[in-house]
């Protein structure tokens, strides 16, 4: 039988049993749509989460005081260690080969006041290089001025939310804020930026590091951000940074230096596993659709016994009959897969339009795999009944006997 | 006593109205034996369906034992079919997955008769139809005559007053056909009202009262 004739023959069959065909298509398309939609959502969630956490740029090292030996656990995030990481330590790191720029960081909470308004905000004490390392956009005014690190200066750059809550529509530049008994002049307002690593960059005030040391009465740094000249130097620079610190801390390794990727890789793995898992859960429905195709093919064979007898009587081979039924199942699966893809792509498109900052997109592997699984299950499950049809004795079949 | 008064039934065939029953008035006495004959499309089957409460007339009244059935609700008509009317079909209409015994038992099951009351009645029926040794056979293991006897057993297990037979011998050889006719006439002699719709002139002539239909009307009605 020529392929074109085979297809036409099967299309006629599918068209004749419209309700049944429609149901098969719905079943298959639910399965394919489920896989694509769920992996698409998973992928969107992953890129969103990773995007939230990867604002540092690829070439950044984060140094925190303290070191633990338990492997695979959390780094010493509290930043407390018997020996502080000092401003001088951070300054020294600027001279380490491979290091492009260094930003010391102290973070604290303080209540700020302006006019009659009070508000508790996070205050970060750092230097001008922090703005370029974290790529913080300035909307008005300027970033922190380049100063000697140990010089305190009563200036502050405020986040967009702080600006809105404290100053409202009034201009903020040039105004004096009070924080914990100290006064700071607003010299810049940051543009909106998302939350990252537990810090809402919009609800933040940035002041010079020496001012923060005075404000919080603290010498030690919570973190040191180190930008490396190129990502290929990341690992070697990390080693040199640690060596420098060991040398400065009486031969003791009491700091932890991590890369953003090492922090994100755990996230990445978890999110990938989740995407895979929800895709797998969706694929269960493809299995059910396969079972349904088997059932319907069985019914189809028993209803068309006489037709099979007739086909054989006029010269169809076992192979021809097998093909007729298999192609019928494959057609249903293919059409169902197309329908399912249309549904899932449409839904994901709607999702992207509604949440413009989340990239809902079915990964290619899921797309290919879902269609392939649909076709495979359909053919696999239709195989048994089709073979039964192919092996019918023409004489019996003509009389409607299976 | 069955009374049909000015019964009419019209079908649309394409855009053409076909008067399957055209102002039919007919009274049938209890225990009578009628045959209804006529060419295809003369309205015999529609008459049978109306009498069997399977079809509702467009116009007129149908009184069964004094009750006007045209005003009954669907469940009530179902009850009347169950309790007062038995059907015998040309193609037997047995349920293939149920045994002879279960086919006969079916109306009792549908009526909600408890199993312990059903068994003796079904046994008696099997006995009467000489089907006791075939009781557990499935329909496709029975001959045509046996199948029709099972169908008759099922039709009368509820002791209906009216037995409607639509070409009861149409699918049978002459020997089996004769047996079935004998059985039906025996039942009539025991008091059941028997109405046979047939093309078979010989069968039609056996009835006490013979009705001939043409174009939805009663053309002749004689004894």
């Amino acid at each position, binding site marked *: 039988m020529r392929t074109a004739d085979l297809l036409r023959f099967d299309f006629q069959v599918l068209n004749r049993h419209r309700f*049944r065909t429609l149901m098969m298509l*719905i*079943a298959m398309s639910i*399965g394919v749509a489920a896989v694509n939609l769920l992996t698409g959502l998973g992928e969107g969630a992953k890129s969103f989460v990773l995007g939230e956490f990867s604002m540092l740029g690829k070439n950044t090292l984060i140094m925190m005081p*303290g*070191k*633990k*030996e*338990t492997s695979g*656990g959390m780094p*010493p995030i*509290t930043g*407390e*260690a*018997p*020996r*502080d990481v000092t401003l001088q330590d951070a300054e020294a790191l600027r001279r380490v080969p491979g290091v492009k720029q260094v930003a010391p960081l*102290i*973070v*604290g*909470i*303080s*209540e700020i006041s302006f006019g009659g308004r009070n508000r*508790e905000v996070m205050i970060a004490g750092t230097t001008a290089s922090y703005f370029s390392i974290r790529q913080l956009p300035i909307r008005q005014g300027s970033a922190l001025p380049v100063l000697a690190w140990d010089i305190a200066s009563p200036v502050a750059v405020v986040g967009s939310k702080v600006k809105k809550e404290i100053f409202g529509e009034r201009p903020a530049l040039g105004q004096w804020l009070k924080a914990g*008994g100290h006064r700071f002049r607003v010299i810049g307002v940051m543009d909106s930026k998302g939350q990252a690593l*537990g810090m*809402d960059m919009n609800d933040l005030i940035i002041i010079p590091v020496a001012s923060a040391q005075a404000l*919080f*009465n603290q010498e*030690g740094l*919570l973190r040191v951000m180190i930008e490396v000249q190129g990502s290929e130097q990341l690992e070697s620079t990390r080693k040199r940074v640690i060596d420098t610190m060991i040398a400065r801390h009486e031969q*003791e*390794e*009491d700091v*932890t230096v991590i890369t953003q990727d090492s922090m994100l890789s755990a996230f990445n793995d978890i999110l990938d596993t989740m995407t895979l898992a929800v895709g797998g*859960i*969706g694929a269960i*429905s493809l299995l*059910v*659709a396969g*079972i*349904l195709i088997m*059932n*319907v093919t069985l*019914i189809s064979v028993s209803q068309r016994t006489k037709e099979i007898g007739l086909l054989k009587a006029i010269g169809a081979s076992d192979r021809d009959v097998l093909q007729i039924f298999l192609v019928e199942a494959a057609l249903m699966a293919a059409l169902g897969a197309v329908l399912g893809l249309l549904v899932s792509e449409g839904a994901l498109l709607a999702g992207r339009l509604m949440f413009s900052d989340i990239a809902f997109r079915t990964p290619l592997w899921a797309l290919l795999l879902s269609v392939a699984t649909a076709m495979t299950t359909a053919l696999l499950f239709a195989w048994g009944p089709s073979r039964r049809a192919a092996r019918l004795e023409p004489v019996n079949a003509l009389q409607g006997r299976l | 006593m069955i009374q049909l008064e000015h019964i009419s039934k019209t079908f649309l065939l394409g855009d053409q109205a076909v008067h399957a029953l055209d102002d039919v008035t007919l009274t049938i006495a209890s225990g009578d034996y009628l045959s209804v004959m006529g060419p295809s499309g003369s309205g015999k089957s529609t008459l049978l*369906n109306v009498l069997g409460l*399977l079809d509702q007339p467009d116009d007129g009244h149908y009184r069964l034992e004094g009750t006007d059935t045209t005003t009954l609700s669907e*469940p009530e008509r*179902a*009850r009347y*079919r169950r309790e007062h009317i038995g*059907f015998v*079909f040309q*193609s037997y*209409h047995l349920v293939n*997955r149920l045994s002879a015994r279960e086919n006969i038992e079916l109306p009792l*099951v*549908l009526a*909600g008769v408890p*199993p312990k009351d059903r068994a003796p009645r079904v046994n008696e029926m099997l006995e009467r139809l000489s089907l006791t040794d075939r009781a557990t056979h499935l329909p496709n293991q029975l001959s045509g005559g046996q199948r029709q006897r099972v169908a008759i057993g099922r039709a009368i297990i509820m002791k209906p007053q009216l037995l409607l037979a639509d070409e009861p011998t149409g699918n049978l050889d002459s020997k089996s056909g004769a047996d079935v006719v004998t059985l039906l006439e025996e039942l009539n002699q025991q008091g059941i009202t028997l109405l046979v719709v047939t093309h078979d002139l010989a069968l039609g002539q056996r009835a006490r009262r013979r009705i001939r239909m043409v174009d939805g009307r009663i053309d002749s009605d004689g004894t």
Partner: protein
Amino acid sequence: MLWRDVFNLVWRSVVSSPLRSVLTALGIAVGIAAVALLTSIGEGVRSYVMTNFSQFGTRIIAINPGKTVTGGMGGMLQTDRPLTLDDAAALTRLPHVEHVVPVVQGAGTVKAGERSRRSDIIGANYAINDAWQFKLAMGSSLPRDESGRSRNFAVLGFKLKQELFGNRNPLGQFIRVGGIRFRVVGVLEEKGQMLGFDLDDIVFIPVDKAMSLFNRDGLMEIDVVFATSTTSAAMAEAVRKELILRHGNEDFTVITQDEMLKTLDKILTVLTAAVGALGAISLLVGAVGILTIMTTTVRERTAEIGLLTALGTTQRQILLLFLWEAIALAMAGGLAGIAVMGSLILLTQWLAPDLPLTLSPFYLGISLLLSVLIGLLAGLAPARAAARMNPIDALRAE
């Protein structure tokens, strides 16, 4: 019609085409098994997490410095209005308070003789055992010294003790924590990991020593353990009032353990239901299967429906017969799915008791109910079609 007769008729019809019925039920079985498995995993994770979180006891209130900061970062950050040891001491005097644990946490090197290990250092007080339900493997807890004048005593986590002392008795031995000498007075029992923190790789020292070690004047957290004589809400309110009195305003955050557990429980329950719902997508496909097969069945049995009508079956009875058939198929599938998955999960629990799998009768009941509902909904359209069939046409179908 009697119930047993309805059952019998439905049964006969289901078994009359066994392969078809099995496949139809299998579709539902796969879906129900998926739902059962996923909800079991969800339940397992939930109870695992809940046990993990409630291991420190439920009558705990945690106070962190800072009001608006989220994500539990509050304690790590500097503040110009810290929680102090005096705050902790004041809370001790509140009614119903059993223990108050001031906490500072950091990391550093712990040395014993030639051996050393970099571990977590937690500054706390005598109450850690009662408050956090840490059990002592040997020795005693930190002593009840007057605040600010505690002696240099330390309690070791199990793993840290093993790393530093091996099988030797550490009690009475000296260790150096960040260069300062402490005497080991106790060792804790093994406790395991929690959220990436190895609870056994810790040294506990008096909180005032930790504060001077870390050169820090504020606490990271104060944990208040209260008696059963009050509720956590009332206790939290009392703590809040006391601290506001001391600080002038609310520049701290109070979290009760049972509030947190409740929130966590809610989140995990929603998650369990959500993954169960994902599994239910395949039930939808199974429902399409039942709809397809029942429609086919109704069409094949047209003549039989005509006959039943002629025999005096009401439309309602026909509707019910087919509806029950659909429900029977779905329920058979549901039971099979639950049985297979249930025994698999029980087997897994027996073979690998560490896996977080909990067979929840609630969700099993829900999924069984779901299968009945699916049969009902998917069977409704075909059953109505059967009931509304014109008996005359139906009888002519054979």
